[in-house]
């Protein structure tokens, strides 16, 4: 919303020492966020009114003209690309030295003498946006220059030519400063949506007085005899409806002062009737609507207004001829036979004010905020009116606004007369307190020993009624703050503290007891795993979306019926909540495989299982279970055993955590995993997940061109298996002896079994390490060669070769017997 300094100054005094910039900062610090402070004339230095006296075609450019512009002291030759330039036109002439913004964007550029396609140009004929007047004079087409002819003719009708050469800012009286307020910062403040409300804040901020807002009282029927009947069918949706008929309307252009006010806050003037309703909305924050009353009247000439909910499917056509199909949630203003306005949003094209209008019906109503907000958002139709209604407006404003608009109408259309009784259907109540406010409570909340007198001063200046009794203030809420904004004592603390100034509060530190914070074991496990997997396991962490596509799920054989689904997915192709990390992880592998020969990635994240009970929902039920999983994937061009890369890395990391890992091979008839390369993952004896190579067929449909293995384990389960205990073996004082043994066994022989058998074979075997596995023709079909290095050591003496020979032979015999091993030389 734009706020005009000149307009504000009608209601309060801004102290001389406060610069516009400072006022902007002060508003930001005490009230609402000011995004920009705009001097209307900021791009108007060296810009004067010029009159085009000659237009010739540019010899070297079809779209350019060479113009001669009269600026009184001289006639300037200017090259101009404006599509609408013509002789006799009054223009905004940017002389040499003027700062303009090309196409209204970027940093200003200072005009210097230039040669354009071989023709000298002494300045520039400006478009509105090039001199910061784009909002005031919107361009109709891209190459349009600002045409001042009509504006000057209407303002200076006696002698327009006298304006030639005068500074444009003087001629247009552009001497205002405009504050651009971030609307998002005042959604909770219905009172700030007009200049007057902002003036009230400024008066409170600077300790200045605020001029009372007291338009002339309505005297009632003056002449004429419109019979008005208003039936409010939904009092909750329309707590107040005021209306009055005005005769003698002469629709015309608004006077300059009115147009200037509206333009300063970014509103385009239309005609005197519409302009005064807009003026009052921007001044007071109360929307108004003017109907052409003749379009509302029935055959007898009576006007019957019905405020009711629309019917499902009812049609409404807006002032700008757009059609909407309404629902029974929408509120409309209607006559017996037609909808004449979408309440609180916009009028209809069947009853708006036109140049032929002579009698109007003025509506000043209050509508239910949520109803209006939902209607506006349902139909994508947000207007200045709906933006205000959805903040919960004070119903008292209806009367003030109606008085003000009638007062102004009599000024801008002097023959206006009130030609009906004043209708006021109202049914509302506001909770205006009083709130008991303990002054000590305020001090504690602020952390400042603010005297009660200062609290009283601040509250009073904002319009609160305050009675002081000992250390308690009895505070009544002004109606414009009582609709939803202020209701509890904490709200009053905010009022006092913000006007006092948060900047004036001296920072303090609360005193906390020194206690170590309770640990979050799962978070700590996640952190350790991230560190170990990344820096020791050399896997890179990725973060995928929690949403997954049905297409992908189908490829890996998942049933979407098991999945929770978003009602309103942003990515229409990804509506499901993941139950696993693996699908999206594999997609990430695929995307990277085009650029990297090796992809080793992992993710830690939550999954969603609707069939299992999770955390409480706060209302006696439970949410779906949301465990934290770890998934790892590895793919490497030419690597035939990515499974082992993943399994080994995982084992290494778990070992660091003191957890034993076992892979229990399973044969699974599944489209997702390779039938010969799949296992359950057991950690500390408990099944916590699975690991497998992607089935070659599925790998193909997923676009994985290298063998890819993926592991997925449940960290919410693993965290329960963690123990503090770690084991330590005292260092032996005796040397050890290593012996290698190589043998051929059946391909089905399992390393883990062999290793366990070796280590258990004799007390002297203290370590067993597999160092080679080989398969090939010379080994024999269905066979594999394995080689182990066995470490022998005694805790009692230094072993000699012959001691080891005995044990080693025993072990070899065991291998032959138990595993059918053929020992290789």
């Amino acid at each position: 919303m734009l706020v005009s300094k000149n307009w504000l100054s009608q209601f309060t005094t801004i102290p001389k020492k406060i610069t516009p910039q400072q006022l902007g900062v002060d508003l930001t610090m005490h009230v609402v966020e000011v995004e920009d402070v705009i001097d209307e004339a900021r791009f108007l230095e060296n810009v004067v009114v010029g009159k085009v006296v000659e237009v010739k075609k540019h010899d070297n450019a079809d779209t350019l003209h060479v113009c001669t512009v009269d600026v009184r002291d001289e006639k300037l030759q200017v090259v101009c690309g404006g599509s609408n330039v013509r002789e006799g036109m009054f223009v905004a002439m940017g002389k040499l030295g003027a700062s303009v913004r090309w196409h209204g964007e970027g940093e200003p550029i200072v005009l210097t003498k230039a040669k354009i396609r071989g023709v000298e140009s002494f300045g520039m004929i400006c478009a509105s946006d090039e001199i910061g007047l784009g909002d005031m004079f919107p361009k109709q087409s891209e190459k349009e220059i600002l045409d001042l002819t009509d504006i000057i003719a209407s303002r200076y009708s006696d002698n327009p030519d006298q304006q030639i050469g005068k500074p444009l800012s003087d001629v247009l009286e552009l001497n205002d400063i405009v504050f651009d307020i971030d609307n998002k910062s005042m959604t909770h403040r219905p009172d700030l949506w007009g200049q007057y409300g902002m003036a009230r804040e400024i008066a409170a901020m600077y300790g200045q007085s605020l001029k009372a807002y007291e338009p002339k009282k309505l005297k009632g029927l003056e002449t004429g005899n419109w019979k008005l009947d208003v039936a409010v069918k939904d009092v909750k949706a329309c707590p107040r409806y005021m209306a009055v008929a005005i005769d003698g309307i002469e629709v015309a252009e608004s006077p300059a002062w009115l147009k200037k006010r509206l333009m300063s806050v970014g509103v385009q003037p239309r005609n005197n009737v519409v302009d005064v309703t807009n003026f009052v909305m921007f001044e007071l924050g109360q929307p108004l609507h003017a109907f052409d009353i003749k379009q509302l009247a029935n055959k007898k000439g009576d006007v019957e207004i019905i405020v009711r909910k629309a019917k499902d499917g009812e049609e409404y056509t807006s002032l700008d001829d757009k059609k909407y199909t309404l629902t029974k949630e929408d509120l409309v203003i209607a006559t017996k036979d037609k909808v004449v306005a979408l309440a609180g949003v916009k009028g209809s094209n069947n009853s708006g004010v036109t140049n032929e209008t002579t009698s109007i019906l003025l509506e000043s109503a209050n509508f239910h905020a949520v109803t209006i907000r939902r209607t506006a958002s349902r139909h994508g139709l947000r207007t200045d009116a709906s933006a205000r209604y959805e903040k919960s407006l004070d119903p008292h404003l209806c009367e003030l606004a109606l008085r003000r608009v009638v007062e102004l109408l009599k000024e801008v259309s002097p023959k206006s007369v009130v030609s009906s009784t004043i209708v006021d259907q109202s049914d509302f109540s506001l909770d205006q307190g009083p709130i008991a406010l303990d002054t000590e409570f305020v001090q504690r909340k602020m952390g400042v020993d603010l005297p009660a007198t200062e609290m009283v001063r601040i509250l009073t200046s904002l319009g609160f009624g305050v009675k002081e009794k000992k250390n308690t203030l009895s505070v009544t809420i002004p109606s414009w703050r009582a609709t939803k904004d202020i209701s509890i004592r904490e709200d009053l603390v905010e009022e006092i503290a913000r006007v006092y100034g948060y900047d004036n509060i001296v920072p303090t530190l609360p005193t906390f007891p020194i206690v170590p914070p309770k640990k979050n074991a799962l978070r700590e496990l996640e952190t350790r795993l991230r560190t170990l997997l990344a820096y020791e396991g050399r896997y890179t962490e990725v973060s995928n979306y929690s949403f997954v596509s049905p297409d992908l799920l189908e490829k890996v054989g998942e049933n979407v019926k098991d999945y929770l689904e978003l009602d309103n997915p942003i990515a229409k192709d990804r509506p499901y909540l993941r139950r696993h990390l693996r699908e999206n992880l594999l997609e990430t592998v695929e995307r990277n495989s085009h650029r990297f020969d090796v992809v080793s990635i992992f993710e830690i994240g939550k999954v969603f299982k609707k069939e299992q009970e999770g955390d409480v929902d706060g209302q006696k039920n439970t949410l779906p279970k949301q465990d934290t999983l770890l998934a790892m994937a590895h793919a490497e061009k030419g690597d035939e055993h990515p499974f082992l890369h993943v399994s080994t890395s995982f084992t290494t990391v778990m070992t660091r955590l003191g957890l034993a890992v076992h892979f229990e091979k399973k044969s699974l008839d599944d489209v997702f995993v390779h039938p010969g390369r799949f296992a359950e993952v057991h950690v500390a004896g408990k099944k916590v997940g699975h690991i497998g190579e992607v089935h070659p067929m599925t790998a193909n449909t997923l676009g994985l061109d290298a063998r890819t293995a993926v592991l997925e384990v449940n960290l919410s389960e693993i965290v329960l298996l963690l123990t503090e205990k770690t084991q330590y073996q005292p260092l032996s004082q005796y040397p050890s002896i290593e012996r290698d043994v190589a043998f051929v066994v059946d391909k089905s022989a399992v390393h883990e079994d062999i290793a366990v058998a070796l280590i258990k074979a004799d007390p002297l075997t203290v370590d067993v390490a597999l160092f080679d596995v080989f398969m090939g023709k010379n080994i024999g079909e269905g066979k594999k060669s394995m080689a182990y290095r066995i470490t022998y050591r005694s805790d009692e003496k230094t072993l000699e070769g012959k001691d080891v020979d005995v044990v080693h032979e025993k072990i070899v015999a065991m291998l032959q017997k138990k595993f059918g091993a053929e020992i290789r030389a």
Partner: protein
Amino acid sequence: MKEELQHIKKEFEAQLKHVSSLLQLEELEQTIFGRKAGAFTNLAKQMKDVATEQKKAIGEMMNTVRLKIVKELEEKREALQREEMKKIAETESIDVTEPHLPKEAHGHMHPMSQVEIELSELFRSMGFMVLDGPELESDYFNFEALNIPPSHPARDSHDTFFIKDHPEWVMRTHTSPVQIRAMREFGAPLRAIVPGRVFRNESIDASHEHTFTQLEGLVVDKDISIADIIGVMKGLLSGILKKDVEVRLRPGFFPFVEPGFELDMRCLVCEGTGCNVCKQTGWVEMMPCGLVHPEVLKAGGLDPDVYSGFAFGLGRMRLVMQKYGIEDIRHFQSGDLRFLKQF
């Protein structure tokens, strides 16, 4: 023997002058001291034939000569070795810029995780618990308990993802629901942070994501004041950014706090003089915060007449983007290793 000894010595010294390598020196040493054919060795073998009375004198003479030769050999050897070492600078020279081959892979932690770990450490050191909560949350915890009833306009701005067939659930739009969960579980006094994933149904572009991360902070105790928020936040930001920072509070509205604030920090890029980062204001908006609304305390099972508290929210992604100058928020969840391998 005396003459022979002198001859050996002379001959040795003459030849020593021509020695230019350790190999030649070795050969020369052999001609003198070789076990079988060394001249000196052979001479020494004749000692047994020397008359007893001369033995002592000759022996001493032999020893003197031997020591002298040995000494000269050693000196020559050292000299030659020094000479040799000088050459390895050239002969054994390597390219120090080459990597060790074959190249080893490296793993990388996601930048968001790195920042989360860093922040969690910082907060833990100040006595904050690190908490977590469900990402699919009840409407109750996400909105109602946070003083956002069904008709509240704040719901519109939250762009919520809803769950089909379960109107009572939403994808959490902020980490704030954990405020209530924490108060109910741990009571007061309480200090906690909640780093976590949140969801907003927004179209994505370079600066908007539908899935992003927040870091919620909550402090509940007796007599927490606005002055405390300013003090604690200043300390926290200084800790996070590792330099002294200036902060300011200005009014801001959030339904679950009262009063609510926007906390700005003096722009670190221009030090407050105005630049593009701070849009010429000298201040950068850092985090929303406020005193916990009494209704929220009540929903958390705490008595607002006894306890008060403050809450704040830190947009971690923005912080990371600022820190590294990342231009597109979509990189974080792209899984693109070209991005991730930089961290």
